[in-house]
């Protein structure tokens, strides 16, 4: 797959994924550009993979998660907290959705990534585990903690108990 073919077929979705992960325009812009510039310069290798778009998503995910590890993470957390605690306009103040987004922004990045991959992208836990480089059980752990923090009631996922049993 050439880079142009990738862009034509998958770029829009990748950019939306970056936006949902990052949570705001500027951060999404930075995240997408940094990864795509890197991917473009290595496309001769990435384009030969079985699923280049999956690899680019993984790059975006890694870049997003690496923010957390930076020594400047406090600044980032401060900013996120600041945004979350910023006084919105009155219409937003009572918006449940905005409140949920504010709480999402305060989640640890790995937990947020799991929620985005599971509930926005609709990916199964096994694939999320592959993207994050961990076990499906760990993914479920992240999801469970994140949902508890957000006070989201979980719908039983078909087969979840079975998978857990198999892994244990």
């Amino acid at each position, binding site marked *: 797959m050439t880079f142009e073919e990738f862009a034509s077929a998958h770029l829009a979705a990748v*950019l*939306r994924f970056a*936006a949902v992960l990052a949570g705001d*325009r500027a951060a999404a812009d930075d995240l997408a550009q940094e990864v795509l510039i890197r991917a473009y310069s290595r496309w001769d290798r990435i384009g030969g993979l079985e699923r280049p778009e999956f690899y680019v998503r993984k790059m975006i995910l890694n870049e997003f998660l690496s923010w957390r590890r930076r020594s400047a993470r406090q600044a980032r957390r401060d900013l996120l907290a600041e945004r979350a605690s910023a006084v919105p306009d009155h219409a937003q103040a009572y918006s449940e959705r905005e409140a949920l987004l504010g709480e999402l922004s305060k989640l640890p990045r790995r937990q947020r990534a799991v929620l985005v991959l599971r509930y926005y992208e609709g990916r199964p836990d096994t694939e999320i585990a592959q993207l994050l480089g961990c076990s499906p059980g760990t993914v479920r752990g992240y999801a469970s903690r994140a949902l508890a923090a957000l006070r989201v009631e979980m719908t039983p996922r078909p087969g979840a108990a079975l998978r857990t049993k198999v892994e244990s």
Partner: protein
Amino acid sequence: MRDEEDLRAALRTLERHAPDAEATLAAVRTTAGAAPARLVWHRGAALTGRPRGWARTFAPLAAAASVVAVVTGVALATSMTGQVTARPGGSRPAAPLPITAQGLPAFLMLYPAPLHSVQPNGASIGGSGIPSALRSHQILPIVSTATWRTVTQARLPGYVTAIAASSGAFFAAVVRGPRAWFYEVRLTADRGGTTTARLPIPADMAPIGRLAVSPDGTRLAYSTYVRHGQQNDVQNLVVASTANGAEHRWQTPARDSGGSIGSMTWLADGRTLAFNWYRPAGEVTTESSLRLLDTISPGHNLLASRQVLPLINQAGAFDDYTISPDGKTVFGIVTCPRRCATGGPGTAGGHPDVRGSLIQFPAAGGAPVVRYTEPRLPGTPGNVVGSKCGDPLWISASARTVLLPCYQHRPRTAAHYSLSTVHVVLLDNGRVRQVPWLGDLADMFFIAFPGITSYDWVPHLPPSP
């Protein structure tokens, strides 16, 4: 209790933040085609400002998502002439700009600080952080020193937190979203416009403190803020190549945490970086000093740099020093709020009280001399330091020429109304000339001349009755 569908719906609303595909694609192609992208993030965080209280609160960082419809990769930015350009890796440094008949660099960049005091965490005192009007872009004037008028402007795509200048171009740290990026501004051939390009230096999430660019424009030094409790201490120093982003980083050892970096200046050799060091952070003490760092030598310990001159000495106490490009002369303004820590008002060159004067020290050691004292206005009470100068705006290579902002103030007395004047003087080998320029200076401003970025202020002038 929320359910999963609420969560899905909330996440879908974030799609509205998706970047524009066409613009992203164009940036990726331009950038990746022009330079190997260095996109590693591993920087330490952040720092503080300068000893003065007003400055400490001013030192900006940034916050807030800007909705800048801009820029990209190693990026593109629109110039004031409408031209779009990129700074490809390995591109040549800008050719030096001319020197005027007065011996000054032909152009300077002016950064009038916003009136809002923006703290390093992006918030302002009693305010809401970066003023919304400044989040998307800032336009900075470029002034000709031949006419002292603004000849063109540079448009920077975000909130500018620091500026600097090489002999041929201007540079700015710009906060966009939660990160700071670095831009180069060049004058067009006819010098009637500018082109602005993002440098291939990795963005930093830490607030940028000070910026300095080597004379040839190939190496950019910046300091970042680190928060320690209630303090915001400058502790990290990065020197990055403007051609490819390759960087070297210095930090203070953990045992020495609590210090901070102030203004920085490159020497003419393009290798030695002079910086003011405060310990404790932001405080002028006997442990605070001007230091010289050899940026080519290995190692990462900031304090392996060499101390040149303490900020408190026999001449008085100094907020900071500025060193001449040849590294031989150090300048400072004596600032003792009441009495200098040395026990008196400061002495130099036989003068018993040199508060407010420009003092000149040989960097290699030796007796200080008074280079300039602003005259007092008639009627100023004897115990009042009414007239004083700010840090030099520019110093020539051998310190023969110095550009200096000064003001005179006479408080109201029984016999006189209060009176204040502000002006800029050019000290030229013993001669003092008034410069017909004050710019559109707000009460705080940065001025980037090649080699020196001055960060100073002009007090509000009380209205004359």
